[in-house]
């Protein structure tokens, strides 16, 4: 929208509208706009185009400075715990991540620790079959911690590079479910002292403010090492991650943009911001 000539009131209004309707949130939008006005003044920028490019670089630095590749221990399997509220795309993102890691020649194993939801184990089993990876599971209604215990043992024995654990969707406002997550973490840590090496929260790109509450509350039960931002193939921009980055310093590590295994990529801040401010 900023192929305009003037850095006038209308420009600032349109920029604010764009950010607000991209779920950037009132406070973060205000902060970024104030910063931009400051930059425009100090660096004597008088045209929208160069200012927008300058802004994207500035925000990209903040977002990328925190994003790193997946943590891998010196020996033994890297354990990746995947968490999040109901329906955001955890199970599908795990399939995509497994596919991504496999195509980089890693040996990947899956653990079906969602023992609660109807056909959750079946869903991950079908993915394991099509990806050609081992899966550790139990019967529906079993104990998720027990599955994790078995999975870690199997991952060690079979010399897997990565063990990705699928958990049941859970609303962060349900304390008993947050307690269950803490227990899952304890069981994993008992088997491998630094595990889980990664705890990734899956966020739905169309979620509003609640994504911040999700990240905060999940962090308290299981310190997060990264975000997988899913469903970016819709019209949602996922602007809430600007606020999450600002307040929690949890980096976005991957993005999902479709239902196929290949609809997945490492997070690229510059590309994300180009799409946000398109």
């Amino acid at each position, binding site marked *: 929208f900023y192929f305009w000539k003037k850095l006038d009131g209308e420009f600032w209004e349109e920029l604010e*509208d764009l950010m*607000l*309707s*991209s*779920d950037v*949130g*009132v406070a973060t939008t205000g902060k970024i706009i104030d910063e931009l006005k400051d930059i425009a003044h100090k660096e004597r920028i008088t045209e929208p185009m160069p200012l927008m490019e300058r802004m994207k670089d500035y925000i990209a630095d903040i977002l990328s400075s925190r994003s790193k590749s997946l943590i891998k221990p010196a020996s033994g399997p890297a354990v990746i715990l995947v968490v999040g*509220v*109901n*329906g*955001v*795309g955890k199970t599908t993102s795990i399939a995509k991540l497994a596919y991504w890691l496999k195509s980089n020649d890693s040996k990947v194993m899956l653990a079906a620790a969602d023992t*609660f*939801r*109807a*056909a959750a184990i*079946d*869903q991950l*089993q*079908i*993915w394991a079959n099509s990806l050609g990876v081992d899966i550790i599971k139990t019967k529906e209604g079993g104990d998720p911690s027990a599955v994790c215990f078995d999975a870690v043992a199997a991952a060690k024995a079979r010399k897997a590079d990565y063990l990705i654990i699928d958990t049941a969707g859970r*609303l*962060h*406002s*349900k304390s008993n479910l947050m307690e269950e997550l803490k227990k899952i973490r304890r069981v994993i840590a008992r088997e491998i002292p630094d595990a889980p090496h990664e705890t990734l929260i899956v966020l*739905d790109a*169309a*979620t*509003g*403010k*609640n*994504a911040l*509450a999700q990240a905060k509350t999940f962090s308290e039960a299981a310190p997060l090492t990264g975000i997988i931002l899913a*469903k970016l*193939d*819709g*019209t*949602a*921009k996922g602007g*809430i991650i600007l606020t999450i980055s600002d307040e929690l310093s949890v980096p976005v590590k991957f993005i999902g943009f479709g*239902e196929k295994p290949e609809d997945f990529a490492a997070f690229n801040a510059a590309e994300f911001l180009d799409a946000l401010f398109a």
Partner: protein
Amino acid sequence: TLQDKLSSIFKKLRGRGSLTAQDVDVALREVRLALLEADVSLKVVRSFIARVKEKAVGAAVWESLSPGQLVIKYVRDELTFLMGNENARIEFSPQPPTIIMMVGLNGAGKTTSSGKLAKFFKDSEHFPLLVAADIYRPAAIKQLEIIGEKLEIPVFSMGNKQSPVEIVKAAKNQALAQGHDILIVDTAGRMHIDEVLMQELRDMKLSVSPQEILLTVDAMTGQDAVNIAESFEEKLGVTGVILTKMDGDARGGAALSVKEVTGKPVKFVGTGEKLDALEPFYPDRIVSRILG
């Protein structure tokens, strides 16, 4: 709360006869903030604020209400009016079976809500049939079958090698043959901008003429709610909305956005993962939740 903010803003306004445009603008700036924080879409906030301003400017300030309370009253009334009545029920067909299509974005809660709706009807003396028309998601059919087993409600499926259009046609014939008076069709999640999948829904609608097309919307949806709702309404046409995951702590502003752009009522609210967690929609509850 919004109430507190407005009373502090209006502390100095005691003794005036009516609300000036300036008073109202100041108050509505706070209301705008509150609505955006509650995830109401920006353009919906704008038109809503404009309507309230029209009603509030020049309004007489009574002894019983402070100016702040008066503005809140206008906001609350307008929100309640917008969210509609609480009597939005399922429209039954004059000729059974009544066909209900469940549509919406990926992961919104369609399959679970299909089960909940089937239970709701079975408990009120109906004879529902669930239809597994999601042929894409791994184990989607199994998921619905497990739900049907738990509820002792039959599930019609033809596996995932037949098209959803074939499935619903055959399901309708089965319903007629076995005397089911309600058919609940679970469809695959899809993006509103996926033209092929939106066409699939149009084809299904054309082939069985459902009485109800219920858009399932996740209560934590943010600004994108307007885009989703507009697309589904424009490209398919919906008759009602099911708002899911209201047992979370999302403010639920998406409900307002969806109602505003589609004009269609929220018919049910999902309040949990269990199959009995379905409630009728109470407008005043969502209004209080949105206003915080």
